[in-house]
């Protein structure tokens, strides 16, 4: 169910089954005068360059009231610059200022509507029927300003320029720990990439800010609210994390998304998009000498931020009792378990990754122990999630017809107990390590795949892991596995979500016997 993120192998493995050779990824690292990091990997496979940059900011850097701002900000980074996206910048600025004035008045009304909601006078602050008359009036004024702005707007011009120049796969993502932007351009368009990315970092203009909040709301409906498990997964994570900012969703709480102001976005930008908080990454067909010159000229002119981004100081408190959530969902009965573990780069994180592999895949212990043997589950998953500030380990399984999620849960604990009491046999450990070793090669197959690994590693705190994690994984011993199994997989350290099927009008599940009766005729 979950995708695992592997690394590239470095050293020569002197193992009986798969002797692989050294495979360092020769990344060139340099720093610009303003503190921006640049990572480069020239590759001649195709006449293209995959370029990206990662800002070391995610939802973990937010606070209650502005949850979702990191992600909303990511959307705003596609709206243009003083020269991209408008035919008349001065008028555009005036309209944006006027829009802000109206929005400020609307926020006063929103405050009043929240008060009405608390008094029980309205049932939902976001329903148009519940808006105050003043708010509706202001809404109309705002709509007029949007119309006026359209006269000078050049829609999605940022995208259009890339598109007309052969750019492909332009996208961005936001996680709890990082925000990244990336694209692939033809090999002769290196300077275009530099121009475009530096320009939007240097002077972004947040046009259409309020329409974009609506887009994000639709994204929230699509991913979280209208999928069978989306809202439960969100709830489960917020139950799991007690003190840590990981407790709120990347997309933000529904009340916060519409309350975020442009002024807050401006402040957020000044704090977290300073050059010393950003890493540029290029993989593909280019000359690194020239790339450094361009980078210094284009990105080097961005002034270093006055202050460094603040650290996330809140540590997750130690969990003291098991947590359980029982949910009825439009899904097959299943169980999902999370244990608190360690963040990225922690010495135990490598062992936990090996442990996850011992449990997963068709020859792994969960599949053998739950799906093949006693046949109580139809699928299982195990996934280590080592984030920047804290980590977790997730295991789950879908119950086979006539079995309960609790039976699946018990079987998972039985497998974990075996790992705590007996060391993994050498052959089994070797099989897992062989797969880590081979995946080092497989992950080198394309520019974009290498770029994304560098994005993740750098975003989590150390790009060198692309070359160093492999050795650390190969060094994991059976004793290490037994030790971490005992240390982290305890009852008081876990949260458990038990899902049973919600009976709806559409489900008229035939008893399994009935199915066989009708078909055996």
């Amino acid at each position, binding site marked *: 169910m979950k*995708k695992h993120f592997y690394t590239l192998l470095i050293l020569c493995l002197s193992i009986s089954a*798969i002797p692989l050779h050294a495979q360092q990824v020769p990344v060139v690292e340099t720093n610009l005068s303003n503190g921006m990091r640049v990572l480069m990997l020239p590759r001649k496979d195709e006449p293209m360059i995959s370029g990206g940059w990662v800002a070391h900011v995610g939802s973990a850097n937010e606070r209650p009231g502005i949850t979702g701002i990191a992600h909303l900000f990511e959307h705003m980074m596609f709206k243009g610059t*003083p020269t991209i996206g408008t035919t008349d910048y001065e008028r555009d600025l005036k309209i944006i200022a006027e829009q802000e004035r109206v929005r400020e008045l609307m926020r006063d009304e929103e405050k009043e509507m929240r008060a009405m909601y608390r008094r029980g006078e309205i049932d939902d602050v976001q329903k148009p029927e519940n808006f105050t008359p003043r708010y509706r009036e202001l809404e109309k004024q705002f709509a007029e300003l949007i119309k006026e702005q359209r006269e000078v707007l050049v829609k999605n011009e940022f995208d259009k320029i890339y598109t007309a120049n052969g750019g492909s796969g332009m996208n961005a993502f*936001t996680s709890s720990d990082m925000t990244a932007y990336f694209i692939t351009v033809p090999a002769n368009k290196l300077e275009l990439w530099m121009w475009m990315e530096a320009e939007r970092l240097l002077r972004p203009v947040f046009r259409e800010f309020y329409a974009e909040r609506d887009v994000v709301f639709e994204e929230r409906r699509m991913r979280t609210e209208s999928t069978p498990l989306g809202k439960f997964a969100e709830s489960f994570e917020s139950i799991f994390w007690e003190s840590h900012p990981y407790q709120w969703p990347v997309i933000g709480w529904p009340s916060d998304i519409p309350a975020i102001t442009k002024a807050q976005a401006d402040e957020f930008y000044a704090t977290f998009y300073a050059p010393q908080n950003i890493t540029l990454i290029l993989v593909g067909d280019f000359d690194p000498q020239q790339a450094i010159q361009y980078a210094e000229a284009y990105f080097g002119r961005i002034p270093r931020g006055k202050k460094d981004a603040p650290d996330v100081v809140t540590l997750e408190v130690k969990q003291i009792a098991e947590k359980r959530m029982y949910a009825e969902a439009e*899904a097959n009965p299943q169980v999902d378990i999370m244990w608190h573990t360690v963040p990225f780069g922690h010495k135990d994180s490598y062992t936990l990754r090996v442990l996850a592999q011992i449990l997963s895949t068709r020859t792994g212990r969960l599949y053998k122990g739950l799906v093949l043997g006693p046949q109580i589950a*139809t699928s299982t998953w195990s996934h280590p999630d080592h984030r920047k500030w804290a980590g977790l380990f997730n295991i*789950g399984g879908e119950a086979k017809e006539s079995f309960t999620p609790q039976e699946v849960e018990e079987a998972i604990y039985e497998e974990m107990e075996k790992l705590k009491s007996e060391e993994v046999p050498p052959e089994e450990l070797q099989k897992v390590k062989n797969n880590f*070793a081979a995946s080092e090669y497989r992950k080198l197959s394309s520019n974009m795949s290498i770029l994304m690994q560098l994005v993740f590693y750098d975003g989590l705190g150390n790009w060198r892991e692309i070359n160093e994690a492999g050795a650390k994984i190969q060094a994991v011993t059976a004793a290490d596995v037994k030790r971490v199994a005992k240390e982290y997989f305890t009852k008081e350290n876990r949260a458990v979500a038990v899902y049973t099927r919600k009976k709806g009008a559409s489900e008229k599940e035939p008893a399994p016997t009935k199915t066989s009766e009708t078909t055996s005729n």
Partner: protein
Amino acid sequence: MKRSILSFFTVVSAILIGFNCNETHAQRQQVKTNTASTSAKPKAVGEAAAKGVTSGRKAERKTSATDKIPDRPEKLTFPPFQYDPPNPSAYRVQLKSGPVAYIVTNRELPLINISILVRTGEYLQPDGKEGLASLTGYLLARGGTKSQTAEELEERLAFLAAQLSSGIGETQGSVSLNLLSKDLDEGFAILREVLTAPRFQDDKIALFKSQTMQSIRQRNDESSSIEGRERGFLAFGETFWANRYTTAASLESITKADMQQFHQRWFYPSNFIIAASGDFDSEKMRVKLEELFTNWPFEGETSSDIPTNTAFAKPGIYIVNKDVNQGRVAIMLPGIHRDDPDYFPAVIMNDILGGGGFTSHIMNRVRSDEGLAYSAGSSLPGGVYYPLTFTASFQSKSSTVPYAISIVLDEVDKMTKQPPTKEELHVSKRSFIDRFPRAFATKAQVAGTFAQDEFTGRYAKDPLFWDKYRDRLDAVTREDVQRVAKRFLQSDKYAILIVGEKDEILKGHPNHTVKLEELTGGKITELPLRDPFTMKPLGR
């Protein structure tokens, strides 16, 4: 549990060039490519104006390099870019044992990738045995072989870190192996057994049937699954072969003998096309492949033609009621065959209208202007065997579904009323032409693309397809685009599918007067959910 990583927009399909080998499957996917937009060139604004930027930083204007940076990217000059696509005939080998192979060497990594494409598919399943293709396909690699049980084979593959997979889809079967080059001989011995002597182990049949039942139970859980399925029914007709789904009864009736028979009928060397790429000497690989397919232990059949008797739905609005707060909409029209002479103009027309992501008309209006949807766009994939559909799709909160549909219909209509601007046409063409090399970005893609062309008959019919690709696109005129818009975007033929909360959608939004009944003549049909076990409409 899903990991929370949000992207700027969703790329549902990884199709790079708007069309490729998997066109039959593309029907049920949204296709994202690239595009164009209308606009006058913005007035240049210099550094002075930048001072007023509320959210930007003031640039330091000290270094000489900085002074050379122009205010608009058009002022940059780029080195020339020359690219010639690989030539299929340079890699094509007709093996004496039957198959055609494309052999592409790549010494960068110690890995080998072999894919065997097979002329078979779901369309060959006997009535009442729906699911047979899927079961047979999956169990070839997962059900053991003559000399190894499924468990032994899985353990061995895992120890070698080799990836063996197999499957049979609508119109194609495949067996693929990715492994370290040092293990090639053992890998080929396994491949030979998988292809000629699969075990179809009983417990693995039972397991896969029970896993299939699990997914059958989920058929009404996601509104997106309901949408995908009903799209197919509206586009091709209730009785079309691609709309025959595995039922609890058909699954139960499938036996090991059915699988053995299905396998032996189609898994025969003259039904194979091979794509091989990676760390090998191409002549040595040719010899090995020749050996792999020689002395086949059984005689197969040549498959019949793929039936093309599709039937597009009667015009109207079709709603499936589902308790979710966001409605999913698919606006469909009869589509195009990829060999149609209008194919290239149609690709560009769709790109400008809704295929091209952020600069397409639909995305601009529905998402950027109105904030009504996160993903919005259109697709017009060329069918390989029969015409597919034009589909404009988006997801919006229940109350704004009617308004968003009206906007999309408006944009579709505009495409027929006027040709695109010169700039729109230019941007669209450049986007396809300049990212063309990505179609052959890796050696595995080179072998894979050519093998698919061989499989679908494109190579036989149009051997210089990729050579001429850019010129053909470049030849499209504004008039061509409007002409094909008129041909394909006929407003009296819309079949509009909505999956969502019916009452809320019908109610509409207080700020927008549009009502669903007023769109497309107002014929609204409620489609019942289907019984997941029989796929028959519920409540009838």
